[in-house]
C-alpha cells in the first residue's frame, strides 16, 4: 500500500472512530475493532470521509442500543412498549387537531353563546399545555419499560390508576356535556393504558423486570 493510501485509510479510520464514539462503552469494548474492520472493508476505494448514509446508519444503531440495550425482551413487553408509543402518537394527534381547529371551534361557540368563549379558551390553553407533558410521559414510560426498569412498571400502574380516577371523577360530576370526539379520545387512551399495564404484569413480563438470580 502506498503512503498516500495508508494516510487515507488512517484518516477514514479516525472518522469512523469519531462516529463509533456514540455507541455504549460496553459495545465498543467488545466490538469496536470488529465493526471497524467491517467498515473499512466495505468502504469505497480511495474513500477518506465517512459518508452521510453510513454515518446515519451508525448513529441510528447507537441510539437504538443506548435507548434499548439488547436483552431478551418478552413479546408482552415489546407489545406494551408499542402501545405506549401509540399513546404518545394519539396525544400528539389530538394536540394538533385542537390547534388547527381552534379558530373554527371558537367561532362556533361565539355564535351560540358569546359568554362561553373565555371559558373555552382557558380550557384549550390548559389542554395544550398538558399535551407535551402527557406525550413526554408516554414516551418516558415506553423507554423505561423497554429497558425492564421495575419502577417504570409501578409508575405506569400508578398513572393508569390516576387516569381512571380522573375519568370517573369527571363522569361523576354529571350534567356535563361532552363532544363525541372527546369521549372517543379519552376512551382510546384509557384502553391503551389498560392494555399496556395488563401486558407488563403478565408472568413472562414479570421475569423480565425481575430476573431470577443465577443459581449457584
Amino acid at each position, binding site marked *: 500500500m502506498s503512503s498516500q493510501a495508508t494516510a487515507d485509510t488512517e484518516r477514514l479510520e479516525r472518522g469512523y472512530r469519531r462516529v463509533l464514539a456514540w455507541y455504549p462503552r460496553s*459495545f465498543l469494548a467488545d*466490538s469496536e*475493532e*470488529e*465493526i*471497524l*474492520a*467491517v*467498515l473499512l*472493508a*466495505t468502504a469505497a476505494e480511495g474513500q477518506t470521509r465517512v459518508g452521510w*448514509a*453510513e454515518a446515519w*446508519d*451508525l*448513529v*441510528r*444503531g*447507537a441510539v*437504538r*442500543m443506548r435507548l434499548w440495550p*439488547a*436483552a*431478551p425482551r418478552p413479546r408482552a413487553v415489546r407489545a406494551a412498549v408499542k402501545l405506549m408509543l401509540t399513546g404518545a402518537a394519539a396525544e400528539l394527534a389530538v394536540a394538533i387537531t385542537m390547534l388547527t381547529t381552534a379558530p373554527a371551534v371558537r367561532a362556533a361557540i361565539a355564535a351560540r353563546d358569546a359568554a362561553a368563549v373565555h371559558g373555552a379558551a382557558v380550557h384549550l390553553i390548559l389542554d395544550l399545555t398538558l399535551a407535551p407533558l402527557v406525550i413526554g410521559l408516554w414516551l418516558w414510560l415506553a423507554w423505561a419499560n423497554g429497558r425492564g426498569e421495575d419502577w417504570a412498571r409501578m409508575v405506569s400502574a400508578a398513572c393508569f390508576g390516576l387516569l381512571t380516577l380522573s375519568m370517573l371523577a369527571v363522569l361523576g360530576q354529571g350534567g356535563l356535556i361532552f363532544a363525541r370526539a372527546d369521549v372517543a379520545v379519552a376512551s382510546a387512551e384509557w384502553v391503551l393504558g389498560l392494555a399496556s399495564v395488563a401486558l407488563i404484569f403478565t408472568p413472562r413480563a414479570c421475569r423480565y423486570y425481575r430476573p431470577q438470580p443465577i443459581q449457584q
Partner: protein
Amino acid sequence: MQEATFLILTALADGAQHGYGIITEVAQISGGRVRLRAGTLYTALDRLRADGLIGVDREEVVEGRLRRYYLLTPEGTKVLAAEAARLHANATAALARLRPGLAGGVA
C-alpha cells in the same frame, strides 16, 4: 421478524460467518437487493446474541483486527425454520391465487 434479521439468520444457516461475510452473503441471497450497512448489522447481531438466536463460534486476529465468526444456535435454527415456513406458506398462497393454473390451484 424484520427482513434484515431474517436474511442475517439465513446467511448463518449453512455455517459460521464473520461480519463482512454476512454482508456479502446477504447481498447474494437477496440478489443484490439488500446491502446491509455495518451499523444495521451490528445492532442486529447484538440483539440476536442477547436473544440467544446466534452465538460466537470462534475469533481470529486478521491484520491486527479481531474477526469474530457467528453461528446459529439450536434456538436460532428453530426460529429461522418457523419463519421460513410461515413466509413460504404465505408466498404459496399468494401465487396460488394469482396464477391458479400455474401453481396447481383449482381454477
